[in-house]
């Protein structure tokens, strides 16, 4: 069964991130907060696409549902979600 920690590693291995948090303990439904400098200058669709790209085939094969919040390092520094 896929764990939140494994999913966190998958994301971090595929995308340079400042910070990643993943929640979810049923092996299928996860929530992630991803902070990456690569998001700078990109819209939300492009930001989520970068995370999906990092997960590649796993998104199709292993992950049923991934709810995501993506932030640039600047937006994260200003936000209250810490």
């Amino acid at each position, binding site marked *: 069964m896929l764990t939140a920690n494994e999913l966190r590693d998958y994301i971090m291995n595929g995308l340079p991130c400042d910070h990643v948090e993943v929640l979810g303990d049923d092996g299928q439904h996860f929530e992630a907060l991803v902070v990456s400098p690569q998001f700078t200058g990109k819209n*939300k*669709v492009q930001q*989520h*696409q970068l995370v*999906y790209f990092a997960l590649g085939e796993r*998104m*199709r094969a292993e992950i049923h*549902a*991934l*709810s*995501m*919040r993506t932030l640039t390092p600047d937006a994260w520094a200003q936000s209250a979600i810490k």
Partner: protein
Amino acid sequence: MNIQEKIRNQVTANTVVLYMKGTPQSPQCGFSDAMVQLLKACGVNNVTSVDVLADPEIRDGIKAYGSWPTIPQLYIKGEFVGGADIVREMYEQGELQKLIQSALE
């Protein structure tokens, strides 16, 4: 007509199109249901929807079309707007309402 052309026709022939699991009356997934409710909150009560569970070709085809691996997917005026998370964020920030209003004018 191949599947990509068929999808392009669907998203350009209708102002707002939702690709979802199930139907607005009987959604088969919480994310799809959430999307229907957000659209209703923006005044779109009878959204044009496509049930991907009814058509495996569309289900795969729309993932390629939007370069997006998940369902639901929302299109407005032929443009991919986002999946469930992005659309919810846009609604919370008032952007979805504006986008829909100007699209329907």
